[in-house]
């Protein structure tokens, strides 16, 4: 059986209701999952003996600005056993933008989620240490949101006083 079919079939057997959309563009399989089911499905992907998606390569987000579901959180997974890449997506529907953290499943997601929180302001529930990654602590905005001006907000980042 084709690896893609194996993945899809295993998922469909267990999570028919949770999957919203499946796209396959140039062998790039991408699955959109309901927000509340994401954690469960991710755990399954890692622990199922036929799949073993043991590596979380990236967590990021997309800001669609004007769409109804403003943010999409994206996870890139990899299985050594199958030598296969999989993309998981989840739309965040309402404010506050929150989703279950996958750090308990993949430790590598820790800093990725912190980065996503810093840049998009998406809150990861149960994250062990959700602090900003790049911007100074105390900064109030999330720079990769589409409504953030490129040049920033004046006076929002402190500078030392120029000496005489």
């Amino acid at each position: 059986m084709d690896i893609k079919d194996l993945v899809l079939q295993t998922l469909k057997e267990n999570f028919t209701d949770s999957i919203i959309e499946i796209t396959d563009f140039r062998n790039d399989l991408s699955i959109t999952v309901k927000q509340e089911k994401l954690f469960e499905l991710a755990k399954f992907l890692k622990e199922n003996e036929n799949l073993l998606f043991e590596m979380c390569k990236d967590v990021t987000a997309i800001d669609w600005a004007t769409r109804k579901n403003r943010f999409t959180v994206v996870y890139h997974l990899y299985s050594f056993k199958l030598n296969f890449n999989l993309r998981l997506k989840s739309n965040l529907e309402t404010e506050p933008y929150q989703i279950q953290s996958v750090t308990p499943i993949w430790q590598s997601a820790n800093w990725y989620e912190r980065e996503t929180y810093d840049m998009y302001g998406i809150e990861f529930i149960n994250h062990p240490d959700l602090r900003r990654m790049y911007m100074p602590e105390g900064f109030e905005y999330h720079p990769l949101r589409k409504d953030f001006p490129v040049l920033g907000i004046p006076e929002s980042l402190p500078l030392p006083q120029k000496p005489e």
Partner: protein
Amino acid sequence: MGLEAKLTQDGFITTTIDAIVAWARKSSVWPMPMGISCCAIEMIAAADPKYDIARFGSEVMRFTPRQCDLMIVAGTVTYKMAQVVRRIYDQMPDPKWVIAMGACTSSGGMYRSYNVVQGIDQFLPVDVYTAGCPPRPENLLNALMTIQEKISKTRARDFQDIIPQKLELINK
């Protein structure tokens, strides 16, 4: 030549303390290599045998601010890094000079963006700006020579008002 000839002839020279101090200072400007990004590579190149910053007495790149006279800020300064740059500058002993090397430090360069300081002169007193992205080592050497020229014109009385200020700071 020069000094040796004078000394062997008469055994003494006449000059002012100011001139000789300035001469000593300008011939041993020790840089603090604040190499924050790509410009640092050209700063390193300026120290190699081809460009040889040692010709100007500045080969002693010190990674401790306590032993430096000149800060070469080579690279993009973000708001987060600005605090660090400034703290290191404050730790350097007086008198001190600053070269803003490259487009980024002088004006933000191509990073017209929320996280990059649009010119380090917003929080540091800059003596020489160097154009280029990155500036060639010759350009940095030229900046150094400009600084030397500036130093050779300093006189002790230029620091007269600074010294009480600094003493006050230290006593605080």
